[in-house]
């Protein structure tokens, strides 16, 4: 039986916007596809063998947790970087997505160094970018939509050559200007979208499971799952994101 090791980074500290939903989606769908899995919580200061990790999940954190997390992660920088180059999958949301980049400049000008795994940087913006968001994502051909909710003060900019996760159709995305959302580097995916993102975008969940299996030369043999509830949730979320009521709300935010 195919098996993957899912490492959950600092579950007690990075769990801001329904991050539990993403972990739950990975576990449930692995189970439904007949993939054996283990979820390993990684605690600050604890021993971590990234060579054993197939899929690393990194959630969002409050400002007060973010700095502690950044300091702790920097001690693991070279291990993580090595694993990423070898093909480890990372799915990082919001605060963790920012941490994967080169630096984050806070609103009072303080520059917090990142992990420099992905070629991007983030600067605090004057107002929070909040609201439902829909993106067109080219991980698939033809592209598929992803729908979620974003809530971030940081504006993220991708350096030349780095691919975004998708093109913004509704919402703000990385910075509210260039219509990009998230970033993809090798098997690393970073995004501002939560909601939780994975449960109502099940193709992304399966994409991550597939990448994690391929990394260890295991074949993904997807089961025929009835995703009609997920599809309905996806479609209705897109309808709501495009509604006049929603547009009024996000301009208020």
């Amino acid at each position, binding site marked *: 039986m195919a098996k993957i090791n899912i490492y959950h980074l600092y579950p*007690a*500290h990075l*769990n*801001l*916007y*329904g*991050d*539990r*939903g993403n972990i*739950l*989606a990975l576990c*449930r769908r692995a189970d439904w596809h007949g993939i054996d899995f283990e979820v390993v919580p990684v605690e600050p200061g604890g021993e971590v063998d990234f060579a054993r990790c197939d899929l690393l999940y990194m959630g969002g954190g*409050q*400002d*007060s947790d973010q700095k*502690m997390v950044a300091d702790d992660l920097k001690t693991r920088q070279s291990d993580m970087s090595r694993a990423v180059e070898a093909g480890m999958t990372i799915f990082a949301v919001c605060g963790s997505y920012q941490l994967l980049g080169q630096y984050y400049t806070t609103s009072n000008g303080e520059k917090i160094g990142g992990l420099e795994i992905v070629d991007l940087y983030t600067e605090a913006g004057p107002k*929070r970018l*909040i*609201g*439902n968001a829909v993106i067109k994502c080219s991980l698939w051909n033809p592209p598929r939509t992803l729908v979620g*909710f974003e*809530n971030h*003060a940081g504006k993220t900019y991708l350096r030349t050559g780095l691919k975004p996760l998708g093109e913004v159709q509704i919402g703000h995305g990385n910075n509210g200007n260039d219509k990009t959302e998230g970033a993809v580097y090798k098997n690393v995916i970073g995004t501002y979208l*939560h*909601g*939780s993102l994975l*449960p*109502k975008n099940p193709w992304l969940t399966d994409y991550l499971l597939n990448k994690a299996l391929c990394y260890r030369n295991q074949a993904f043999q997807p089961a025929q799952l*009835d995703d*009609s*509830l*997920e599809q*309905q*949730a996806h*479609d*209705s*979320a897109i309808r*709501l994101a495009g509604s006049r*009521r*929603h547009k009024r*709300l996000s301009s*208020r*935010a």
Partner: protein
Amino acid sequence: MRNLFKLKLLVGIWTGKILIALTRIFGRGGTTLPGRIALKIAPQLSSSLADHLSKGSLVVTGTNGKTTTSALITGILKEAGYNCVHNQSGSNMSWGVASAFVAAASWKGNLFEDWAVMEVDEGAFPGVTRNIKPQGTVITNIFRDQLDRYGEVDHVLGSINRGLEMQPENSFIVLNADDPSLAGVKSSNTKKRWTYGLELDLPADTFENTGRDLKVCPICSGKLSYKKIFYAHLGHFYCLSCSYVRPEPDVKLIDSNTNPDGSTLLQVRLPGEEIEVYFPLLGTYNLYNLLAAVTCVKALDIQTSLIAEALKKSVPSFGRMELFELDNKAMVMALIKNPVGANEVLRTILSEKGKINLLVAINDKYADGTDVSWLWDVDFEQLAFNKDKLASVTVSGLRAWDMAVRFKYAGLEPAQIQVEENTAKAINKALEQTTAGNKLFILPTYTAMLEMRRFLNKIGLGKPYWEE
């Protein structure tokens, strides 16, 4: 200049009153729009009317328990013979407070009430405090709630502190001693600080407290530990690295005996005396609400015998385990709005003896919180673990499908989940599944609750909420 000011105030009150009457004709509560418009005309409306109060204002803020706590305080003050103006339906932004004042004011711009008891949203707290200058502020707890509006818990504390700075000298603050996050609440020497807490042996809950926002000491960031934990991060905490420890509360609940109907006989210790209270409301969270209210009126020197008398008559507040009955089927409506509150509601429901029919209605309008990701932090898995207790499950509201997916991933069979986006139709469908003699538990977000109550009022159940 003075006359112009007075005129604006009167026009604001008149417009507000007319709008309240109009909105009620259309079956709405008139707790939002009239206040908004009235404030546009007369921005000082709440502060001018608050000046007429013979005694003063009290404000209840915090994440959970505001509605019930302020209702309990109002009940006790009324028992003591005072007249109160109170925003009882939970409309707790600045316009909700203004609407309540407008409704209570006379057409000549007078207000004959003794006290104003206002529940106030944490974000609206600084503005409202600046206007109505409360004599006392009760802060119930701080949990994660509606992050789309306020960013994060850290910001909520900042907002509360800004509000407290606006409170007049010689006022008082009532705090939950069991909530470690309230350590950051600042107060000056001129303000009396009252605390309350539980001193009981309750079984710790088995819920996964993903809503436990405070993992570390708010003072030194060391690890926080507990001698006793009641739910989420509420309990007898102490820091492993510094001297921060739960303060000894002024008002404590020292004993609780549960009656067969779920009501409790409580022993409350106040400075220098003890009272016995028969309390009809269910759930641990209501014990905290009771203590908050008792502490607040104790700070006002209300006679203790009156306190017990008033609490005995407590009925569930607006949408807080409120009971409706139709064709020998009971409907219990309990508002859910954040993980900690929802977990406590689920815990209370699961302690029910019979089979449970469930209707969860999730909207994502502004008053509900536009981000529904909190649903994934609620421990709905508890329902899947108790599948044999579940007779039927219906989901509704603008985010019905999100909720359906949530239940699927919690471990329920998709075929078991009935989806009906329209909240009124959902009540009918869920009632069809409910057999006579059984209960239907309705768990709506705020605006879904307003919709459902309008529907229930229409079929003759319950009173419109502005008449209560």
